């Protein structure tokens, strides 16, 4: 039972991270399209932000892993 709940929790965390990273990617693409000359800065900030969101999701997944 806890295993199923943990799997559900991990799935929910992944949904959240997916929405977040999707937003970042979409907005970054828009920004690059508007200002192609700033592509380098935007790209490294995009990776940084995606990594931060990923961190939150990973904590949830690791917790699910250990509770399981």
């Amino acid at each position, binding site marked *: 039972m806890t295993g199923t709940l943990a799997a559900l929790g991990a799935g929910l965390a992944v949904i959240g991270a997916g929405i977040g990273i999707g937003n970042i990617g979409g907005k970054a693409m828009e920004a690059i399209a508007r200002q192609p000359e700033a592509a380098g800065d935007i790209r490294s900030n995009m990776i*940084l932000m995606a*990594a*931060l969101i990923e961190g939150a999701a990973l904590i949830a997944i690791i917790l699910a892993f250990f509770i399981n």
Partner: protein
Amino acid sequence: MRKAIICTFGILFLTLALLTAQDHSHHNHDHNHSHDHSSHGHDHSGHNHDHHGHDHSGHNHSHDGHHGHNHASHGHDDHGHGHHCDCGKHDDSFDAGAVAFHHIMDANQFRVFGDINVPLPCFLKSDDGFKAMLSSSFGNAGHGNGKYAIDKYVMVHGTVMRVADEGFPMGKVEVNCYGHEEIVKDGKELPLFTVSYQGKCWKLHEKSTLDGGILGGGITSFYDFSITKNVFTMLLGFLILFLLFRTAAKAYTTRKGMAPKGIQSLLEPVVLFIRDEVAVPFFGHKADKFLPYLLSVFFFIVGLNLIGQIPFFPGSGNVTGSLSVTAVLAIFTFVITTINGNKHYWEHIVWMPGVPAWVKIILTPVEIMGMFIKPLTLMLRLFANITAGHIVLVIFVSLIFIFGGAPSMYESGNMGGSILGTAMAIPLTMFMMAIELLVAFIQGFVFCILSAAYIGAAVEDAHH
């Protein structure tokens, strides 16, 4: 400057190697503690040629009934001599999850293929004293298991374990087979490994970990200071990076004033990229002070990620996907942040200016928690990304066996299914390998840029 980089490298990697050698906490491997008396004295049921020859399976059964929670092992088939071991229960079918799990773990020997292992030195410390030997002295009974017990130490699935019982003989004795079962203690399933010797099942201890049982494990009857697979890979990575950077650094004196060439022109753009895109934006005029650390973690992580991607012998070690290694790296960032933090940084953590007092009471604990959560996420991000990559790759390769429907990893299954599985596995594995190549660089870069952001926030000059 170049000398500083090389010195930092040397110190960082030697420290890392020593630290991991001391504590490769088996995050994904819970240890059984000495107070669960589960499979003690299980007499086995007569497959083995023992002196007693009694069939005690009834006894065994009642014991199982008493515990009621013994589960079949996850595809760990331990029958060293081609028959079933009676310590623990067995499920012979191929289990991709177990194979992947086994792959990402550290080991005391380096498996090349099949039953061919590269021996690694083992340094073991217990109450009976210190013991140094090669992992090959355990012999080879197949599947990474050892044939002999040496001073109570045995080799199970490539990992050294120790017989917990006092009555087990010292010296070199031949053991029969190994068992594995899951016991339930405090609502958690814990693996329990056993070895069969002279018709008795002896409970095994896994190595002590220093994490205090948070990640499973705890203090058992022995410590393992061995050069394990991960430590070996780390030393290899250290050597490769050292030679690369030595060559590049030399070129700056021998080829002074000339255009970069060879390794120099491979590394220079990367070093400049880290300096211009990471160090300078976050540190400004203090960039030179922290650049050596950033370059060290970047090349260390990227180098070991790439070595881990090589699917055969010197590669394949899951070093950056091991929590202890990423924890040490994250602790470095945490320590550098903390000791370099200026007044401005501490003020903003403990008692931030310009904020009402009642908000400060809420914010201060959050900020203090944040201090520790930052390195924690650094640690988990790298660990989870690399481990997930390794697991997915192994699962994709396992498609061949899953579709083949082989009864176990060492037996043949159905040919048509295997061909279908191979047809799926090859493109999927190649695709995943390409993604992982990207991830290897991205995770190195992310660790580096986040470290820079955390340290940068601590050394930033006040501007308000």
